[in-house]
């Protein structure tokens, strides 16, 4: 082994504290990258394989009732490859053990063979047999949630008649990777199920013989989905078309894509921050370590080593530290990735979803970290070798000291000798002091940015479920029903409050831009059960005429206050309206239009119809009441708020885990930054400090000089870090699809304090470690060494 290599190893051993902390910071960066990017890649490849294998459709349309003959016309639309028509209906499933019925979506399949599109993947049991009208295949998540097996009976309300269906198979489908019911954004495996039944069994039940109400189409290569969807809408117009959209609006796909998009961006942004901090740290640490080794570098140059050889020597040092961090990061990332995929598995149902450590992801991680490490190191190395050896071997010329303004003003006279030394050091090397503060600031920012997701979710939950949504249960109907249902409900035993609600699906259009949204009539009750959660929190002012729309919808459509928009009602007589936008809502998710109840009634030409009723009730009466509500005619679903909340918590659980990991990583970085600053400060000043000890200063006094400097970095760095943290939160939040979520980048004072405390603790631990070294300062030894 070459002598220079031995030096490398011994330097590593000597610098182990710093090497380990830097490697850990790098490991955090790589692990976050491998975990998130790996999860992303795994989900994408699982999606692609599944969609491809099960022939997931490109265009989806829903219609009231169209005769079968229309199907062949749809197949002739330019760009369409395959058309598959079917019957899709929502029914209620009064499953045992649940007070409210679950919602079941019946999807017809051909009596024989697989559907040409959106085929199911059978997990257990068998396909339905022709001529058996009671056989169903059940969605796996629903079957699992209720422990249903092939052979079990499932009670269902089919068009008003209760019937026991026999489960013959359990399956999954690319249409229901993320399975939610109509109008819901929260998955609830217990309360939403899909039942696949033979079309000849379904049709008579809903009087749909010779007709269909749902279309799936695939596209020819290069065809435009948007054009096909528009053309299909035109063809289906006479039959009461409800929706005709590309895959993007298919709910399961939409949610999956939203998640993937966010994960994809997050997987770049977060590791970039970690690796950026690691590079910064490497730069600062190496610059100073090399500065301390300038004598050794000069000697190496004196005896004939070239700049390249010396440079490589330090590059190796960096590569070993960063490389070790990278390997650790990959192993850790693999483990965390397995866990992360495990958290996704219950929500995104794929036949084969496994975390695969993609070699290209691992390689990218290593290349990025080594590059950032070297970028951090090379400038320091270049600076170190550029000094002529004769100059580098001389003790440094005394630093040019001038009395800074602060001192001339007499401020420093107040702080004693130790304080004066600290202040002079800071003021005379402002760049170094600034870099140190920035390092501390980043550490604080990362902890805050890691933790803030807790706060944002908490805020969202409290705004939505405590402020905006106070009902105990919502009963929604398949179609709007007369308002008399409100009175009926009010007289049921246990009911405290009832509030009618009217929501209507519309297409809202301004010039060429349009979105399919719901218009929600806002009740004029004094203390409503349901309001709109806005950020910043305030009551939504519903205009007395016209509509208010989500601010985001206004942005998308390019609508200004007072502009008129075209509204096409997507139910009933499908009327077209021209309505002024008289307000904007700062609501936090989805795109909506809001108006006064009488305005909506006028628009629709109806009186007092409701699409759902909201109730509060006495808890004692709950089960009897829910059972009674489920028997109301035309009920589509009965949903308790407490269940939504519970599901929401469960569904965001993976976010808690991610948050915890990020916070932990942030804390490691905080420690890495502060500890390294402290160690470097110690190395650079040990001579001065030993001199002070020799002159009779106590340990406490010299500690004050060194740790005072550290304390100043921490004290200045933390507030800067809070600003940086807010900025990072904004960056992270901007990765969400703004049409789905507009969560505020919000952190409580507690979280900011948490960031500050973690950094301060890291500072304290580092200070103690350095203090221990100070106590063992070798006075004679230190004074003898020149460097």
């Amino acid at each position, binding site marked *: 082994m070459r002598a220079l290599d031995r030096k490398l190893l011994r330097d590593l051993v000597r610098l182990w504290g710093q090497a380990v902390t830097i490697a850990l910071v790098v490991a955090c960066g790589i692990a976050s990258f491998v975990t998130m990017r790996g999860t992303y890649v795994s989900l994408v490849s699982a999606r692609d394989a599944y969609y491809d294998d099960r022939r997931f459709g490109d265009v989806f349309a829903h219609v009231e009732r169209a005769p079968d003959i229309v199907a062949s016309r749809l197949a002739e639309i330019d760009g369409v490859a395959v058309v598959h028509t079917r019957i899709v209906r929502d029914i209620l499933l009064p499953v045992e053990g649940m007070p409210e019925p679950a919602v079941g979506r019946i999807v017809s399949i051909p009596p024989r063979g697989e559907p040409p599109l959106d085929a199911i993947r059978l997990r257990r049991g068998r396909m339905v047999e022709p001529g058996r009208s009671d056989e169903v295949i059940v969605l796996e998540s629903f079957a699992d949630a209720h422990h249903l097996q092939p052979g079990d009976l499932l009670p269902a309300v089919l068009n008003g008649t209760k019937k026991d269906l026999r489960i013959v198979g359990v399956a999954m489908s690319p249409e229901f990777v993320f399975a939610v019911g109509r109008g819901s954004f929260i998955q609830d495996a217990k309360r939403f199920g899909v039942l696949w039944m033979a079309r000849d069994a379904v049709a008579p039940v809903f009087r749909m013989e010779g007709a269909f109400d749902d279309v799936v189409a695939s596209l020819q290569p290069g065809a435009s989905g948007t054009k096909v969807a528009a053309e299909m809408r035109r063809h289906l117009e006479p039959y009461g078309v409800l929706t005709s959209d590309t895959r993007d609006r298919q709910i399961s796909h939409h949610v999956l894509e939203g998640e993937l998009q966010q994960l994809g961006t997050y997987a770049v942004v977060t590791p970039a921050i970690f690796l950026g901090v690691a590079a910064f740290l490497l730069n600062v640490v190496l610059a100073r370590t090399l500065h301390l080794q300038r004598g050794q570098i000069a000697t190496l*140059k004196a*005896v004939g080593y070239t700049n390249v050889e010396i440079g490589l020597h330090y590059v190796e040092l960096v590569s070993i530290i960063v490389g070790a961090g990278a390997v650790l990061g990959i192993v850790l990332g693999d483990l965390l990735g397995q866990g992360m995929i495990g958290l996704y598995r219950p929500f995104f149902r794929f036949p084969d979803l496994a975390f695969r450590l993609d070699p290209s992801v691992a390689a990218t991680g290593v290349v990025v970290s080594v590059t950032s490490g070297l970028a951090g190191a090379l400038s320091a190395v270049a600076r170190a070798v550029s000094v002529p050896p004769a100059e580098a071997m001389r003790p440094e010329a005394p630093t040019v000291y001038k009395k800074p303004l602060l001192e001339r003003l007499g401020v420093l006279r107040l702080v004693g000798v130790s304080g004066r030394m600290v202040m002079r050091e800071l003021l005379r090397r402002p760049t170094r002091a600034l870099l140190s503060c920035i390092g501390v600031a980043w550490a604080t920012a990362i902890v805050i940015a890691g933790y803030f997701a807790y706060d944002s979710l908490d805020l969202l939950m409290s705004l939505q479920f405590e402020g905006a949504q106070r009902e105990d249960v919502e009963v929604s109907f398949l179609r709007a029903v007369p308002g008399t249902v409100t009175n009926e409900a009010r007289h049921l035993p246990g009911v405290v409050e009832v509030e009618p609600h009217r929501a209507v699906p519309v297409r809202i259009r301004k010039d060429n831009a349009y979105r399919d949204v719901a218009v929600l009539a806002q009740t004029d009750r004094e203390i409503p059960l349901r309001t709109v959660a806005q950020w910043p929190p305030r009551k939504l002012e519903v205009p007395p005429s016209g509509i208010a729309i989500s601010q985001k919808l206004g942005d998308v459509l390019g609508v200004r206050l007072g502009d008129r928009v075209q509204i096409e009602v997507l139910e009933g007589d499908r009327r077209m309206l021209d309505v002024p936008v008289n307000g904007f809502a700062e609501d936090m998710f989805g795109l909506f239009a809001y108006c006064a109840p009488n305005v909506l009634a006028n628009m629709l030409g109806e009186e007092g119809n409701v699409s759902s009723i909201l109730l509060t009730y006495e808890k004692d009466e709950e089960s009897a009441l829910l059972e009674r509500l489920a028997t109301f005619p035309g009920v589509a679903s009965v949903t308790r708020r407490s269940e939504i909340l519970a599901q929401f918590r469960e569904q965001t659980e993976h976010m808690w885990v991610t948050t915890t990991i990020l916070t932990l990583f942030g804390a490691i970085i905080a420690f890495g930054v502060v500890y390294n600053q402290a160690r470097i400060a110690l190395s650079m000043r040990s001579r001065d400090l030993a001199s002070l000890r020799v002159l009779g200063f106590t340990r406490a006094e010299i500690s004050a000089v060194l740790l005072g400097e550290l304390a100043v970095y921490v004290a200045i760095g933390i507030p800067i870090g809070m600003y940086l943290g807010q900025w990072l939160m904004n960056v992270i939040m901007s990765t969400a699809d703004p049409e789905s979520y507009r969560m505020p980048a919000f952190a409580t004072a507690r979280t900011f304090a948490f960031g500050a405390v973690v950094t301060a603790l890291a500072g304290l631990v580092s200070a103690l470690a350095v203090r221990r070294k100070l106590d063992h300062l070798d006075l004679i030894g230190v004074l003898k060494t020149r460097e």
Partner: protein
Amino acid sequence: MALDTPVPGHGTARPERAVLEARGLTKVYRMGEVDVVALRGIDFDLFRGELVVLLGASGSGKSTLLNILGGLDTATDGAVHWSDHDLASATEAELTSYRREHVGFVFQFYNLIPSLTARENVALVTDIADDPLDPAEALSLVGLADRLDHFPSQLSGGEQQRVAIARAIAKKPELLLCDEPTGALDAETGRVVLEVIDRVNRELGTTTAVITHNAPIAAMADRVVGLSDGRIAYVRTNEVKKSPSELTW
């Protein structure tokens, strides 16, 4: 005995050509906020196989001269020639290869790498030299055969300086430049170190320049060059060289 002859330029009229030749060397440093003129137009020659002592008080410019002769630093003005190479106009890479191939250095503060043992400190140089001595052999030449695996912190000052000498001679340099090699040592240890340098000069024939502010050391030289205030004050030849063991200070 030695006779003092204030001679500008060449020392004595020697028949052979100088291996190292400096003309009109000037060096100005900027230290903090002051300009320091270290050399003021020096002419100096070094002849093959001789041992020269550069004698001068602190600040006389002798270290600066040595650094420039050794390619550790460049002159502000003037010319330096090593054989046919012009060091004054050499690039940094050329200076590096000059040091690497031809020059061995010994410094006042040893400049050993603290994380390497004696043997490894020598190996640092033999790793990059053509046809070097074995590090152990070099160390036994300076009387440290039994201290091969000691770290600098485990060696006395004299021993550390001898390791530095072993490191300098291990590559069999043509030129050995010693900057105050005894400056940090007591007289007894200093003599041991000087004996090693003397032996290297005699036995290996290495052209040697030793810098010192310690006048009695001049007695071991073939030639003594006195420096003062950045100029050569005198050059004298020792008719009779003393052995380092006879020196006292």
